[in-house]
Structure formats: C-alpha cells, structure tokens
C-alpha cells in the first residue's frame, strides 16, 4: 500500500504566497471575472461608460465599436452599460433560485438520507418521478400554473433544479452514514444524535458550498432560458434574460443584441464553473461529473 502523505501543516510557510502560486492562471483569470461581475452588481456605475437608460435614436442599432463595446439597441442605448446594469437582478435571480432549490433539496435529501427506510423509499420514488420531467419542463409547468412573474421565474428554476440536488444530497448522507468512521464512533459508544451532529452532517454537507457556486451559474442559464422564451423578466428591463428576449427579433439584422447578453451569461457561468471545480479539486481530489 502506498501512503499518501501531504504537506504537514506546520511546514506551510508563507501560506498565501504558496497558495497563489499553486492556483493555475486560468483559474485566477476566472476568479477575476467573477469579481468583476460582483462589482457590476454592487456598484454598476463604476463599469458603465454610458447611461444604460438614455435613448438616442440617432445612434440606434450600432454594431460593437470602441465607443460601444457591445453595440447599441434599437433605441440607441449602450448595450454594455445595460448588461452591467442587469447584473444585479440577474445575479439576484440566480442566487435566489439556487438558495430556494437548495432548501427544497436539503429537506428532501436529508429526510431520505437520515430518515427511516420508509421515508427514504418514498422520497426516492418521488425523485424518480420528477426525473421523468426535464428541468425546463418542470419550470414551464410551474409558470403555466402560477402565471408569469419574476417570483414565479425564480421558484420555477428552483423547482426544476431541486431534484438533481436532492439526489446528490441524499447520496452524500447515505455514503457518510455507511462509512467506517461513523461505525467507529458507534463502537466508541457515542449516542446517535451526537454522531449525526459531529460526523454525518459536517461531512455530508462539505461539498455543498461548491455545488452552490456551480448552481448559481446554472440557475442564471436556466432563468435566462425562460426569459428567452418570453416567460421571464420582460423587456425593457436590463436583466440579461430580458435583453435576450428583446434581441430575439434582431438575430438576422443586429446579431450583437442576442450574442452579447448571451456572452455575459456564458462568461459568468464558465468562470463560476472553473473556480468551483478548482475548489472542489482542492477539497477532494479529482471531480466526478454528475448529472443534475
């Protein structure tokens, strides 16, 4: 047997420096991009070359240039500034939907993972049924039943993505529950609630932080998909999905109206994925791809 020996903790001199050196440049770049998005959401003015709402019909539908990096829309508004402006609402939708999705998934997953076998069986069947519906369709069903508002959009995305998370969380709990170290704690004579609190919870929940980060990127993609279909936040809001919806009629004449907001979404989702995967790899070695 080969022992895997890592660096002893004491030997980690000048930890920040060593940490920065150990992060690949691609990941650093991605982290920088995520930081810019956060800045756009918190203080959009810092990044905006123009007023995102002032119309100027003389400069409508201009292609991207140095003056207007993302071009202008049919009312002559600077698209880049509008994308920056939309960051706050888009990120809020993404974070809100992911948070809600996690709450649902945690309730189901923990009930199944820690509860009696009967509950686990029930939850598991329920999840199997939900898996027969694709994420987008679950979201659409919800929008159809409850009507079309920003809240429904958030809840719809949350419901669409929750089954996948629930299954992963259930798996986490079952795996930790069946581990030898939990058995070892039983053999020492600790009561079960203490074992749940000390071993099962912390270990099962450990991957969730990273999962959440990745989830926000995916949630924004799903939410923008709904908006793209005209079922989310509606124009003239600068929310990214709404920008996509507004640009749909211009695909053949002014491609940037569709491509640039999409790029903003893609860049965010990708950067979050790269950063998230890197953290995950650091925490637990090679990442296994999972279906959500």
């Amino acid at each position, binding site marked *: 047997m080969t022992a895997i020996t890592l660096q002893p903790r004491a030997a980690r001199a000048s930890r920040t420096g060593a940490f920065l050196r150990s992060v690949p440049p691609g990941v650093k770049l991605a982290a920088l991009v995520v930081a810019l998005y956060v800045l756009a959401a918190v203080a959009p003015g810092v990044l905006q070359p123009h007023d995102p709402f002032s119309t100027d019909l003389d400069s409508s539908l201009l292609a991207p240039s140095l003056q207007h990096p993302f071009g202008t829309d049919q009312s002559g508004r600077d698209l880049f500034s509008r994308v920056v402006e939309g960051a706050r609402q888009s990120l809020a939708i993404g974070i809100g939907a992911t948070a809600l999705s996690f709450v649902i998934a945690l309730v189901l997953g923990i009930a199944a993972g820690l509860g009696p076998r009967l509950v686990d069986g029930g939850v598991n069947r329920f999840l199997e*049924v939900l*898996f027969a519906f*694709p994420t987008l*369709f679950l979201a659409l069903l919800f929008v*159809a039943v409850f009507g079309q508002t920003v809240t429904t959009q958030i809840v719809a995305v949350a419901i669409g993505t929750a089954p996948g998370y629930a299954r992963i969380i259930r798996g986490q709990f079952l795996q930790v529950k069946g581990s030898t170290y939990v058995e070892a704690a039983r053999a020492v004579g600790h009561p079960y609630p203490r074992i749940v609190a000390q071993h099962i919870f912390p270990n099962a929940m450990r991957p969730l932080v990273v999962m959440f980060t990745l989830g926000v990127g995916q949630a924004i993609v799903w939410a923008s998909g709904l908006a793209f279909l005209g*079922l989310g936040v509606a124009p003239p809001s600068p929310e990214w999905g709404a920008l996509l919806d507004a640009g749909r009629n211009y*695909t053949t004449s002014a491609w940037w109206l569709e491509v640039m907001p999409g790029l903003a979404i*893609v860049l965010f989702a990708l950067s979050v994925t790269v950063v998230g995967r890197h953290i995950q790899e650091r925490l637990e070695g090679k990442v296994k791809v999972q279906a959500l």
Partner: protein
Amino acid sequence: MAATVLKRLAGAVLVLWATATFTFVVQLFMPGDRATMIINTQAGNLQNPSPEEIATLNERYGFDDSYLTQYLHYLGDLARGDLGVSYNQHQPVTEIIAAQIGPTIVLTVSALILAWVISLIITVLATGRDNVWSRAATGFQIVTAALPPYWIGTILLVLLAVQTGIFPVEGDTSVIGLILPALTLAIPLSGFLGQVTQDEFERVLEQPFVTSSRTRGMGDLGVRLRHVLRHAVLPAVTLSGWALGALFSGAVLIEAVFSRPGIGGILVQATSGRDIPLVTGVMLASAVMYIVANLLVDVAYRYVDPRLRTA
C-alpha cells in the same frame, strides 16, 4: 426473458401513472378561479365574466366535481389516450401534439446521435494522452457543457447562416435545415457525455486488464478500441435516457431560435396562455419519451455489458 419484459412494462406504467398524478396535483394549486382565468386569458383582458359563462366552463371541464372525481376522470381519459381539450385552441390535446411532435423527435434523436459521435471521437483520440490536443479537448468539453443551447444556436445561426449563407436561416424542415439545430443541441450534450466518458475512460486505462492486454502485444489504439471503450461508454449509456429528456426540453428553446415547427412553439404559447391541459399533455408526452428511452437504454446496456445477460 418474458417475465423481465413484463416487469419492465409494469414499471413503465407505474412511472407514467405517477407522472400523470403529479401533473394533476400541481394544477390543483392554481391560484384563483380556473374558469375566470380561462375566460380572461381568452379575452386578453381582465373582465368580470357572468355567472352563466363561468357555469358553462365549469360544466365543460368538470371544475365543480370533487377532486377525486376529477382525478378519476383524468386517469380514465388518459387510459383511453385522451389528454383533454386545450383551453385556448379548443382542440383535443392529443391531436395538437400528434401534429407537431414529429419534427421535435427527429431533432432530438439526431442530436443524441450527433452528441455521441462527437464525444466518442474526442474521447478515444484524446483521453489519457499528455499533449496539447488532450488538454484542448478537455477544455472544450468543460466549456461546451456549460453553454446555454440557445446561445450556441444564435452563434451558429449568425456565423453559418446569416453571415455566410451556407445553411438556411430558419423555418426550414429539410435535412440541411436539421443540421444546425441538431448540432446546437448536440454540442453541450457532447461536452457533458464526453466528460463522463472521459473520466471513466481514464479510470479504465489504468485497470490491470488493460496492462494485461498490452503485455500480450496489443497496441495503444487497439487497447482503446477493443478493451477500454466498451467499459468507458457504460456510464454515458445509462445517462442517455436522461439526456434524451433533456434534449427534448432543449429542443423547445432551439425551435424558438431557428423558428422550426415542433412541440416548442405550442408549449411556449400554452405556458404563457396558461393552457394547462396542453402543458401537462406535452409534459406527459416527454415523460413517455423518457420512459421509452430508458427501456431502450436497458436493452443497450445489456448489449454492451454481457455480465447482465448471464447474471
């Protein structure tokens, strides 16, 4: 064998019943009075419908019956292949879906095949080699797996149809017109399937039986094709049932990008018009597809993994 088939079919019917029940229960949560809502959506504005109008609708859709009666009616109709009547189009849902589902299924299945081809080629040629191409392939898969399909569609449309005119811009149902939409759907899926397959491929490449084959004089490509590939595709085969469902829903977005006929148009319209029978009808259709796909996956799995046949 016959017993296994019967068991499978019974399982499929059970899942179908459960999905139908789920969609039925969800619509009971609809806020407000359903009859009023239907009248309002049809009229396109808010009005106060007369009690007679409401009573007529309640009579037609049986909204006054107890939930249990409604449920039993719904299941009974479903057993006869009747998905109800669309609130807005006043046609049987089954007819509307039957008329539109063809192009969507063609698109979905071609996308799945295309995704498999792309991911297999990349996996066999690039996995486990320490070179630029291998890293580029991994990067490509991570990136594409994260891309929203509507955006890929837009890019392909702008680059290959609008700017260069190689492909028809939109609304074309010919084989040529199928290429871009199918590619659009296939690219993110190929990234996902590719990552799963590549993970497994890398793991299998390190297995003792692979080394064992090399010691008999098998070359690298031979090892990859004859031994490793078969093991490595198993997880992706399992996921293909799920993937087909995801593609089916992705097709809704892609049909919107390319203005293709198909189920997407009706579903979007039905969703914004809150045409519940039509929405649930499409969902059940996709559930049926998911079930059928998974039965096929089972068959495919047995074909790839002979251990299941002898067990």
